[in-house]
């Protein structure tokens, strides 16, 4: 096996060998390696197939920008992870990784055929091709496209890992632990500011940490040595927290940032167990220093995507940090000085290399150094083509014309096993723009830079466009002193020597004699979009960068175009003949690198997913086999199946029992608002549609609450407990909103009213007993209470004691039966319930759930707000005009009740429906029509509630129907998938219209 590990470095521990599997084969690396560096050490460049053309692709970079080396980690159904960048994944014993997007394997991939038919699949191919015939879309095209879409495989079972969230507050947050970030953090922390420094790598130091060029020195030391010393210094600072393996995912307003910390991804399986895998830090910082650095740009030329073609600086890092050479015969293709550092470093380790430079000539310390070492440099030359299928083996270069628009002279063929490219550097302005900052364009080296720094956010170092070390350090120190309003002198006498770049030449799309249509000049490696695609989009009329991006999918892959966006912009600008600065950029959206769902969700999984509210009777319901229904956050008994009953049978039994003898419902979840104050009556007058001033103490009244637009908002019974004291009940789901709405009116519109609102929903438990025998049960529970209709009539309230505990008893009914609601302090709720059950035994007192409650009230035509209403129903639409006071001058929503739209006769109105076949139960939500033959079919309304009534022995339904009020007796049709159901419009009250049962 070849060994490309040629250099000893302090970052690779060669005493600790690590074995790992890649595509099923076992390899070895060392502690300190990433998966990418270990693969390169084993001579493996080919790591995947491209998305569209299935071209062989190799490792391109050494960081977060990696477009090609994305792999599937692990193979377990619950623990596998797709699209992990091999360049960021630290190697650990037992790591299993595989390449993606290839079948049967990465070396021989059937999809490679796409490469040869590529002229047939240009930009917008899918939009253009799969349009006709229309009927093919659902059955043929979509399944086929879905089969080939996507990268990697998702886990199919729940994630067993533990994730965590943490909130932290700092005076200063420094993003990025390179040379400028370290200086900024040190200055801040030494000035007594609580500081957090985060960096996504395992160790601090950025690209300076492996810098070893003699022409770049600080205080007479190699810059890397100087920086190591600085890192030792800052580690001693007590108010500086350093978080490595932590990357900022998002920068929101008010300096609120999200960071992901990797805690166990670098550990072998057995050491990961029972530990938190990733932590999401939610950071509030008074000030933020962005020092995120820059990433190297590729160059756009024909066949620039072969394995073995990397970014020049990445070759340098693999060599000087990981000790791995990417080849033995390397060509560096550049338009700037930084590739010369790579060249010199390679040369020193005995790796043969030559340089192809776009520039006509260049002079700087670095270039002189390279020339003096005898490194061959081709100035004013351009790479026009590369060769080699699974890995580059040679390339062609040509001379550039004076204007750089074309090539001249003869091709020169050079052999190589690796090509490094450097198209200059792109400052990482993601954080700046995510925070709302704007960008400026600098023509000189074609970079976007932060336009202005705000008082609480600043960019320093190369993310601010400062590239040489002297510039970086001087500017960082000055800016941080000003930004933090401090006077730090630590770097006053720091002596920096570095090479200064004097010459620049940028060409976004390099010239070629071959027509563009026949070249493969890749811009976005991961989404396989080429210069040709961009030009095609422009030709077809796309102008906005946002449109070109979406049409060609440039920059839309998992790497979010970190390497490609600038070239796309450059080519658009050149082609359209506009200045790049005027073109703008696409939006930099969070997250910077992909986040796992686990990190986002944290601990809020399983039973912690949402808050659950239970009544104090809950345990009894569980013990008695209740099925539960979620109503908002509440768990409410839905029905109580007995002896294997299904829901229908249980509900029929419960409903029958409630009407024949007695039923009991846990009504604790209804919202309860305690209203007190001398203006309480006036307040109720204003918020309900009916009049409240004359409600006697000890009496109850049903009220309907509207929105200001006249639509029904909530309903419930309110009891007058004393002169200035009411207890309001609301729907279960509406409780919080009603309270907040009432508070709003009290605080903002009617602050003069003396009224105080308190939510007491959780303070009282409620057992509601109904049915002809309910009075007898009440009598057993409260033997001293006079239950006669004279003393305790319908819609009234009494207080009594149950074993010395105060109870509030309301005689009110939601079922149409004689009915009592007993309220008791919640801690006694469970006992109350059990005593009711015990007292009711001889009367077959049957517990019933929400489904039976809905059925019983539907028999009586009582509405449920939110089921029979949907925010577009007025009281009149509900045939409830009787509850709207004509006398009251004003109440919430009154004026809206006679707007031109609300008085329309043909609004949808609540009606009853009876099916012609009494056994046929309608589906809630089903559409209602009068004529199935007309086209388009005229929809009249829909079914809102539907049940089979055991008490009437027929199907009943409530519905909203256009002009429904005038349609009683009319025949309508409910068209279903395989039949039409005939119905007749009826009254909304199906049972006991005379209310005789209330006083039974």
């Amino acid at each position, binding site marked *: 096996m070849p060994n490309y590990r040629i250099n000893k470095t302090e970052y690779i521990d060669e005493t600790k060998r690590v074995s790992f599997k890649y595509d099923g084969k076992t390899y070895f690396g060392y502690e300190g390696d990433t998966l990418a560096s270990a693969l390169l050490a084993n001579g493996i460049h080919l790591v995947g197939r491209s998305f569209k053309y299935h071209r062989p692709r190799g490792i391109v970079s050494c960081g977060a920008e990696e477009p090609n080396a994305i792999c599937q980690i692990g193979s377990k159904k619950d623990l596998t992870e797709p699209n992990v960048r091999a360049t960021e994944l630290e190697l650990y014993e037992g790591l299993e990784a595989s390449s993606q997007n290839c079948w049967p394997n990465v070396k021989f991939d059937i999809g490679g055929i796409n490469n040869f038919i590529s002229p047939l699949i240009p930009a917008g191919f899918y939009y253009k091709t799969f349009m006709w015939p229309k009927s093919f879309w659902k059955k043929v095209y979509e399944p086929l496209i879905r089969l080939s879409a996507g990268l990697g495989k998702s886990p199919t079972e729940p994630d067993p890992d533990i994730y965590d969230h943490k909130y932290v507050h700092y005076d200063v947050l420094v993003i990025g632990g390179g040379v400028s970030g370290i200086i900024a953090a040190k200055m801040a922390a030494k000035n007594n500011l609580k500081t957090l420094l985060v960096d996504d790598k395992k160790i601090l130091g950025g690209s300076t940490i492996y810098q070893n060029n003699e022409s770049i020195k600080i205080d007479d030391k190699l810059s890397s040595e100087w920086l190591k010393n600085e890192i030792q210094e800052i580690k001693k600072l007590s108010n500086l927290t350093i978080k490595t393996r932590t990357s900022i995912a998002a920068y*929101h*307003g*008010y300096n*609120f940032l999200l960071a992901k910390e990797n805690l166990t991804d670098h550990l072998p399986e057995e050491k990961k167990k029972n530990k938190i895998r990733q932590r999401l830090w939610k950071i*509030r910082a008074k000030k933020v220093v962005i020092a995120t650095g820059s990433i190297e740009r590729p160059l756009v030329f024909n066949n620039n995507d072969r394995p073995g073609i990397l970014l020049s600086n990445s070759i340098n890092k693999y060599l000087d940090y990981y000790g791995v050479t990417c080849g033995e015969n390397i060509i560096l293709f550049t338009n700037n000085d930084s590739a010369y550092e790579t060249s010199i470093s390679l040369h020193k380790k005995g790796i043969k290399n030559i340089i192809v430079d776009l520039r006509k000539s260049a002079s700087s310390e670095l270039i002189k150094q390279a020339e003096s070492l005898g490194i061959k440099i081709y100035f004013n030359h351009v790479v026009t083509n590369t060769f080699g299928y699974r890995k580059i083996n040679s390339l062609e270069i040509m001379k550039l014309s004076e204007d750089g628009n074309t090539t001249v002279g003869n091709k020169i063929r050079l052999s190589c096993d690796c090509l490094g490219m450097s198209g200059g550097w792109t400052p990482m302005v993601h954080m700046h723009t995510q925070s*709302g900052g704007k960008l400026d364009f600098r023509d000189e080296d074609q970079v976007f830079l932060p336009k202005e720094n705000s008082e609480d956010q600043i960019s320093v170092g190369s993310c601010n466009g400062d590239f040489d070390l002297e510039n970086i350090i001087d500017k960082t120190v000055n800016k941080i002193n000003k930004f933090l309003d401090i006077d730090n002198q630590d770097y006053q006498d720091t002596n920096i020597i570095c090479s200064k770049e004097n010459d620049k030449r940028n060409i976004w799309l390099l010239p070629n004699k071959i027509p563009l249509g026949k070249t493969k000049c890749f811009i976005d490696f991961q989404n396989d979009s080429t210069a040709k695609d961009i030009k095609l989009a422009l030709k077809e009329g796309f102008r906005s960068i946002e449109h070109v991006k979406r049409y060609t999918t440039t920059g839309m892959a998992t790497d979010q175009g970190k390497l490609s966006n600038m070239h796309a912009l450059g080519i658009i600008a050149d082609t359209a003949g506009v200045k790049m600065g005027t073109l703008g950029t696409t939006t930099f959206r969070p997250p910077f690198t992909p986040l796992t769902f686990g990190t986002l969700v944290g601990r809020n999984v399983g039973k912690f997913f949402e808050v659950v509210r239970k009544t104090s009777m809950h345990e009894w319901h569980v013990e008695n086999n209740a099925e539960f229904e979620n109503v908002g956050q509440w768990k409410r008994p839905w029905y109580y199946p007995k002896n294997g009953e299904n829901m229908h049978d249980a509900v029929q039994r419960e409903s029958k029992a409630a009407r024949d003898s007695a039923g009991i419902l846990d009504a604790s979840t209804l919202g309860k608002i305690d209203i007190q104050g001398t203006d309480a009556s006036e307040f109720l007058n204003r918020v309900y549609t009916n009049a409240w001033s004359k409600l006697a103490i000890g009496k109850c009244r049903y009220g309907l609450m509207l929105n*200001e*637009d006249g639509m029904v908002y909530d309903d419930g019974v309110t009891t007058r407990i004393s002169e200035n004291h009411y207890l309001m009940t609301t729907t279960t789901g509406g409780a919080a909103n009603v309270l*907040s709405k009432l*508070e*709003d009116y009290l*605080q*903002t*519109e009617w*602050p003069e009213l003396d009224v105080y609102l308190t939510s007491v929903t959780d303070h009282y438990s409620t057992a509601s007993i109904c049915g002809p025998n309910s009075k007898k049960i009440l009598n057993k529970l409260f033997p001293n209470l006079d239950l006669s209709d004279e003393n305790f009539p319908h819609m009234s309230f009494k207080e009594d004691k149950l074993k010395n505990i105060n109870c509030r008893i309301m005689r009110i009914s939601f079922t149409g039966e004689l009915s009592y609601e007993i309220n008791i302090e919640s801690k006694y709720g469970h006992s109350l319930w059990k005593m009711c059950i015990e007292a009711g035994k001889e009367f077959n007192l049957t517990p019933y759930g929400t489904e039976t409650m809905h059925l019983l009230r539907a028999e009586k035509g009582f509405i449920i707000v939110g089921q029979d209403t949907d925010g577009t129903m007025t009281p009149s639409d509900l045939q409830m005009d009787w509850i709207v006071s004509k006398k009251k*001058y*004003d109440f919430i929503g*009154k*004026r*809206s009740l006679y*707007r*031109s739209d609300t008085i329309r006769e043909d609004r949808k109105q609540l009606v009853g429906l009876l099916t012609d076949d009494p056994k046929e139960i309608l589906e809630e939500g089903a559409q209602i029509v009068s004529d199935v033959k007309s086209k388009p079919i005229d929809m009249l309304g829909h079914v809102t509630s539907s049940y089979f009534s055991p008490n009437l022995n027929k199907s009943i339904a409530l519905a909203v129907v256009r002009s429904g009020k005038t349609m009683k007796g009319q025949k309508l049709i409910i068209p279903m998938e395989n039949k039409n159901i005939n119905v007749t419009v009826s009254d909304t009250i199906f049972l006991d219209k005379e209310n005789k049962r209330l006083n039974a």
Partner: protein
Amino acid sequence: MFLINCPFCGERDQSEFSSGGEAHIVRPKQPTELSDDEWAEYLFMRKNIKGIQFERWNHAHGCRKWFNAVRDTSNDKILSVYKMGEKPPLNYK
């Protein structure tokens, strides 16, 4: 996520608050006297400004108090907060 300075409790995270839309829209004292158009103006019409906007906030998961805030909607900076019933600061237009 905003940091909002509740006039009663001090600086708190936005997640504790709910927004109540445009401020200083007074409910008409005599709605019945209004034409449909005048009532619709009160009921439906809101400004939705890019720039300085006066708006209502409720410290829903805190003191439950409503208050007003002046916010620049172009950069989300909250420039001032003041209690209900207080006059809006004069230096913003």
